[in-house]
């Protein structure tokens, strides 16, 4: 195509036919040149107020009613009105069709950017990343939210707003611990069970060796210990999905309360992959929009002026302030993600010796998109960073690792920097920072005192001496106790069983009577 091709749009104005043309032009590049595999797109144009609405219901187009969303809306609105906060250009929903919201204030260039970013970049990521495939049901999420909304509304009517609110408050407090982190074991049906038993028997027969009989076994377990083991097994303990545990085993919950817990749990689970793939998701989407729009410009479909406008927005998005900059607030996932994607592009197409040494698998293989698509499909932030952060990028961003031990009075130690000795350590630490397993405190249900007062026992596995915030913990435990309707205790202990703190909270009693 020549540079004289007809432009998709001129100036800043857009209309619906233009959006359609922009989308089609992007789609052509996305499919033929980048080889993206996407859900069908649905693009919705919304106003700033509707964007604020979407903000307060975690970006979803429909959600059940709860005061906390109103609170967030009020909070965002206050900031937005004062001009302290700009609104996102877009929101995209992991659903099929993939819904992208476009703000009406955006210029045509911005709409192009957003369409390329959300409707193709994020869309491809949602459809192909293993975490999303495993944990989310893009086809069903909108229907499920619709069900949830109606169900909560019905509960409001039948059981009273207050009772529903209490239950939801409690469920929200436990939301971060209402997630299955590992794909669960499938319950076997009878036939598979029989088959397995048969296979095991055959294996035992074929591998029979009388000698094994003479191997001494461990000490015989006391009946008490066996009992405890049996009980824990029955209850599925230890269990880190607190909401699941309550839903299934809390003795005095009403069926509708269990359903509410389930709704909150399912929604938390739906968002679980997003929190683990921020860097990759944004990196992929940013890389895609950059490639698509550069290509559009090369083809003469957008003018130089509009391309410059795009570059300016793009640069703002991928800006990474230094740690001592007043604007610094951690790593910008867009910046880090985009830099890594570009870095991979470089390694694949134009590697140097260092890259060949560090990334023998991909260095110089030539097909950038094949490598990137594979990366986007099979990694999450933590594994992505620990595999693909290159020394060159660490040098470029001048990364360093600080180790802050409160016991060390001299101060904070610089543990590693971007040099030969430090690359691997810096990379490992950064990967860890993006590992949700390290970010969320690890709290499990360890036991229930079934013989006694039905106390629910939790344990927080303390890592590196970081304990729970006391005030918040009491409040969350209060919610937990209200749902459990008997006492709840929480022990904070580290791997050596050193106990830091213990909480015991009794229920207030409305959950049961509600």
């Amino acid at each position, binding site marked *: 195509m020549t540079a004289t091709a007809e432009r998709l749009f001129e100036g800043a104005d857009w209309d619906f036919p233009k959006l359609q043309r922009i989308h089609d032009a992007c789609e052509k590049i996305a499919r033929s040149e980048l080889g993206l595999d996407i859900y069908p797109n649905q693009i919705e144009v919304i106003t700033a107020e509707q964007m604020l609405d979407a903000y307060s219901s975690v970006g979803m187009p429909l959600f059940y009613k709860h005061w906390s969303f109103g609170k967030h809306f009020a*909070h965002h*609105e206050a900031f937005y009105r004062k001009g302290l906060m700009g609104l996102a250009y877009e929101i995209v929903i992991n659903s099929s069709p993939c819904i992208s919201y476009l703000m009406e204030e955006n210029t045509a260039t911005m709409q192009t950017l957003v369409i390329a970013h959300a409707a193709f970049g994020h869309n491809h990521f949602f459809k192909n990343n293993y975490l999303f495939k495993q944990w989310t049901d893009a086809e069903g999420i909108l229907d499920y939210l619709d069900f949830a909304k109606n169900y909560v509304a019905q509960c409001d009517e039948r059981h009273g707003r207050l009772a529903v609110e209490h239950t939801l408050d409690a469920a929200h*407090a436990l939301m971060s611990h209402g997630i299955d982190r590992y794909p669960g074991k499938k319950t076997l049906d009878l036939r598979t069970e029989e088959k397995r038993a048969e296979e095991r028997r055959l294996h035992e027969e074929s591998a029979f060796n009388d000698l094994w009989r003479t191997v001494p076994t461990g000490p015989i377990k006391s009946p008490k210990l066996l009992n405890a083991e049996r009980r824990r097994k029955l209850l599925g303990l230890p269990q880190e999905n607190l909401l699941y545990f309550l839903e299934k085993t809390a003795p005095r919950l009403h069926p509708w309360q269990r359903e509410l817990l389930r709704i909150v749990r399912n929604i938390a689970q739906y968002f679980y992959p997003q929190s683990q793939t921020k860097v990759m998701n944004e990196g992929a989407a940013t890389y895609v929009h950059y490639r698509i729009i550069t290509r559009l410009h090369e083809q003469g479909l957008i003018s130089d002026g509009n391309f410059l406008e795009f570059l300016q927005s793009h640069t703002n998005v991928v800006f990474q302030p*230094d740690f001592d900059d007043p604007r610094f607030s951690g790593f910008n996932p867009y910046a880090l993600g985009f830099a890594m994607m570009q870095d991979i592009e470089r390694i694949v197409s134009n590697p140097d010796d260092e890259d060949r040494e560090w990334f023998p698998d991909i260095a110089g293989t030539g097909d950038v998109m094949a490598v990137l698509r594979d990366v986007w499909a099979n990694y999450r932030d933590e594994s992505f960073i620990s595999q693909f952060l290159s020394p060159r990028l660490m040098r470029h961003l001048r990364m*360093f690792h600080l180790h802050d031990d409160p016991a060390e009075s001299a101060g904070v130690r610089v543990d590693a*920097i971007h040099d030969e000795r430090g690359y691997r350590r810096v990379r490992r630490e950064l990967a860890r920072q993006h590992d949700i397993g390290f970010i969320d405190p690890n709290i499990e249900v360890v036991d229930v005192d079934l013989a006694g007062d039905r106390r629910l026992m939790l344990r927080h596995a303390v890592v590196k*001496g970081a304990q729970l*915030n006391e005030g918040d913990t009491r409040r969350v435990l209060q919610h937990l106790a209200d749902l459990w309707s008997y006492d709840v205790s929480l022990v904070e202990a580290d791997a050596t069983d050193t106990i830091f703190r213990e909480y015991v909270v009794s229920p207030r009693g409305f959950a049961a009577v509600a």
Partner: protein
Amino acid sequence: MAMHIIDRRLNPGGKSLENRQRFLRRAKALVQGAVKKSSQDRDIKDVLEGGEVSIPLDGMHEPRFRREGGIRDMVLPGNKKFVEGDMLPRSGEGRGKASAPGEGDSEDAFRFVLSRDEFVDLFLDDLELPDLAKRKLAEAESEGRQRAGYTTSGSAANLSVSRTVRLALARRVALRRPRPETIAQLEAELADCDEARRSELLAEIEALKAKVRRIPFIDPIDIRYRRFENVPKPVAQAVMFCLMDVSGSMSEHMKDLAKRFYMLLYVFLTRRYRHVEIIFIRHTDRAEEVDEDTFFHGPASGGTLVSSALEVMHEIVRSRFRPADWNIYAAQASDGDNSTSDSDVVRRLLTEKILPVSQFFAYLEVGEAGGGTFDMPDSSLWRLYERLRADGAQLSMRKVSDRSEIFPVFHDLFQRRRKQEKAAP
């Protein structure tokens, strides 16, 4: 692949309104406290502008399990001069900053903006007016979306399937589009017939099929969308009469008190009625209808004849505000002076003309600054109204001498039909 563009901009707004109301309801006690506090030192007018309030986070807080303290490791960008093994001082300026991002505990207050309506709503929440019997619908103000027939263009979401199909059917009938059954019938006939008939039938079928192709099942001209129109909704209306004695005996302070009293009444009415008219009537020994500025600031002098104001009010009601269409409220402020000879006229005007058509008549007797309300001797007007009330007239009356007393008085005046007012028929 099919891509849909949906225009959501025209969707009804306020999707999170219910969430907001839930939030405000939950935070009601806190917000009310904040409103009260922020209104104490300000002018009433500013208070009613609404605006930002801040409430303590307690109770609104959404707790989560979160960790703090312990050994922290972090990777940061932008190293300039550190090498491995450097120790950086923890507190204080400069380099140590990054290591101490003191977890946001300082955020113990939650700030947000209340709209004017919400603010006033909270402010006046437990107040209620006397029976609002009349609710003649007239006078337009607010708007809503209402179905308004069909249109040939619109968004896909508004497609009216039934109307479209109906039009399509009508068109097909009018253009005599062959029915599939007819063709099927002919084709069945085709199966067993002689040669001559056969070619005839074939031609006929061919013609019919061509016609079917020419006349589509649904044509773009059949398509109809539901049309919506923004229509004004009729609302109840009220008129508020502000009567004030502006004779020489009324000081600036007294006028200020009166003004606040009117203002609150006005706010209250605007909340209840979408359309509120205000009529200002000032009087000395003559009364006249004036604009607001003149009402409060225009110079005037003369004696005091309350009946003149009542007379003017009655005249205006008669000519412009038919009691059947308007809710009539009157608020009178005076220092209480009135010539004794006027009493009978006042009594007659009030009981016969004004009170029967008014929803509410309030009399505020304003006193000089510094004088307590209990010290104020009963004025001639006060005594007259007192007597009227004893006879069963629906009058609300209070004495006020200080700015800070207005709120309580106001509250008192509109308290859910308490006290004597309640007993009145």
